[in-house]
C-alpha cells in the first residue's frame, strides 16, 4: 500500500514551504505530489521542486468542492503511469490542498473509492498552523478550524517569529484537537518521517493505539474542549458493546450528525469479540470497516471513542448509545 498524506492549512500557513523541505530530503525524493491551487494563476507548484513526471497540479478549482472526481482520476492516472514505468516508482503521495479547502471531502475520496483503496492508504492529515496569525485565523475563518480539527498532526510554522504568542495558540489548539500531535517547524524544517507515520487504522498495531487515539498524551478523556462550535470529547464505556449496537450507533451518528461529525476514532470492546478489539475511524458519514487488532494494547479493555464535531452535544451522543444498547439488550432478552 502506498501511503497518502493530506497536507492542509490556511492560506499562508506554510504548507508549500513544508512540502518543499520534505521533497528536498533524500529519504523522501520518491514522493508524488498533487498540489491544488485555487485561482487562475497557480504559483505554489513553482515554489516546490519535484520531479516533473510525478508532479500534478490541479488548477480547476478547490479540491474540496469542484474537483473531487479529478482527484480520483489524477491518482488513478499516477498509479497507471507508475505501473507502466513512465514515472519514477514513487513510494508515497502528498496532496497539498488549497488554503481554503475543507479536507473532509478529500478524505472521503481517498476512503471511499474502491479502486484507490486497493493501492493507496490514507496516512493521515497534516495541518500547518501559522504561529504569527494562527489565533486570528482560527477566530475569523471556520475553514481553518475544520482543518485543525481534522488533523492527525499539527505543524506550528514560523515559530522563529512568534514565540511570545505561541503559548496562547498552543492552548487553543489543545482545546480544539487534543488528540493531534503538535510539532514545530522553523522555515519548514521538520522531520519528514513525522508526516507519514500517523498510523492508518488499517495498518495499526495494538501498541500504536494509545498514540493514534491521543488519549494518553491528553488525559484519559479529552474534556469537552469547545471552540467556534467545534468540540472534542471522549466517550468511555466499561461494558462490552454488542456489534449490532455499535452498527446502529454509527448509523444514527452518520444520519443525524454526518456533516458535523468531523472525526470519530476509537477502540471498541465488542461483546462478540472480547479478545480482539475493533478500531473504528470515520470522517463525517464515511467510515472505514472496523479493523480487528490481534490483542488489546493494554490491560484497559474499555471502549474509547474520540469525537471531534461541530455543534455535537456529548450528552446527546452518550444518551444515544445508552438508548441503543438498552434496546438491543431488551430485544435480546425477549428473543431469549
Amino acid at each position, binding site marked *: 500500500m502506498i501511503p497518502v498524506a493530506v497536507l492542509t492549512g490556511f492560506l499562508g500557513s506554510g504548507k508549500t514551504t513544508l512540502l518543499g523541505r520534505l521533497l528536498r530530503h533524500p529519504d523522501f525524493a520518491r514522493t508524488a505530489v498533487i498540489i491544488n491551487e485555487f485561482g487562475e494563476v497557480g504559483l505554489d507548484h513553482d515554489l516546490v521542486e519535484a520531479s516533473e513526471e510525478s508532479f500534478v497540479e490541479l488548477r480547476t478549482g478547490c479540491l474540496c468542492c469542484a474537483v473531487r472526481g479529478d482527484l480520483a482520476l489524477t491518482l488513478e492516472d499516477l498509479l497507471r503511469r507508475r505501473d507502466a514505468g513512465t514515472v519514477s516508482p514513487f513510494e508515497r503521495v502528498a496532496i497539498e490542498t488549497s488554503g481554503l479547502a475543507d479536507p473532509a471531502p478529500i478524505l472521503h475520496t481517498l476512503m*471511499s473509492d474502491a479502486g484507490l483503496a486497493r493501492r493507496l492508504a490514507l496516512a493521515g492529515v497534516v495541518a500547518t498552523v501559522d504561529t504569527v496569525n494562527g489565533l486570528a485565523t482560527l477566530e475569523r475563518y471556520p475553514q481553518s478550524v475544520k482543518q485543525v480539527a481534522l488533523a492527525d498532526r499539527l505543524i506550528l510554522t514560523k515559530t522563529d517569529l512568534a514565540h511570545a504568542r505561541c503559548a496562547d495558540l498552543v492552548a487553543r489548539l489543545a482545546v480544539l484537537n487534543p488528540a493531534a500531535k503538535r510539532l514545530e517547524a522553523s522555515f519548514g524544517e521538520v522531520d519528514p518521517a513525522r508526516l507519514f507515520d500517523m498510523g492508518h487504522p488499517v495498518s495499526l498495531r495494538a501498541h500504536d493505539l494509545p498514540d493514534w487515539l491521543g488519549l494518553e498524551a491528553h488525559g484519559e478523556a479529552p474534556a469537552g474542549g469547545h471552540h467556534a462550535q467545534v468540540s472534542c470529547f471522549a466517550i468511555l464505556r466499561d461494558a462490552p458493546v454488542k456489534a449490532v449496537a455499535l452498527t*446502529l450507533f454509527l*448509523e444514527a451518528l452518520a444520519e443525524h450528525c*454526518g456533516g458535523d461529525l468531523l472525526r470519530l476514532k476509537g477502540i471498541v470492546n465488542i461483546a462478540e469479540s472480547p479478545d480482539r478489539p475493533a478500531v473504528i475511524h470515520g470522517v463525517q*458519514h*464515511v*467510515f*472505514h*470497516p472496523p479493523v480487528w487488532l490481534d490483542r488489546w494494547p493494554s490491560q484497559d479493555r474499555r471502549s474509547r471513542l474520540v469525537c471531534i464535531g461541530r455543534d455535537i452535544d456529548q450528552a446527546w451522543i452518550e444518551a444515544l448509545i445508552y438508548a441503543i444498547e438498552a*434496546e438491543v439488550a431488551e430485544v435480546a432478552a425477549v428473543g431469549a
Partner: protein
Amino acid sequence: MNGKIDREADGTLLIAAANKRVRVARAPADLPFRWTVADAGRRRGATSVTGVLRHVRAALDRDYRSLRLRIAPLPPIS
C-alpha cells in the same frame, strides 16, 4: 433547537418544539412496531430507537436531510 419534553406516567414522551407537538409512545402489541411517533394527526411506526429518532427529527426539522452511513472499501488482503 429549543423545546420541551415531558414524560407521562406510562413512559410516553411529549415533545414540543418548532411550533409542533410530537408524541412518542410504545406501540400497541398488535402492531409490528416497538414505537409510534405521532404529530399533526399522522402516526408512524418505528421498530427501533434510531427509527424513532428519524421520525422525530423529520417532524421537527424541515431542513433535515438524512445522510446514510457509508463504509469505505476494504483494502486488499496481503
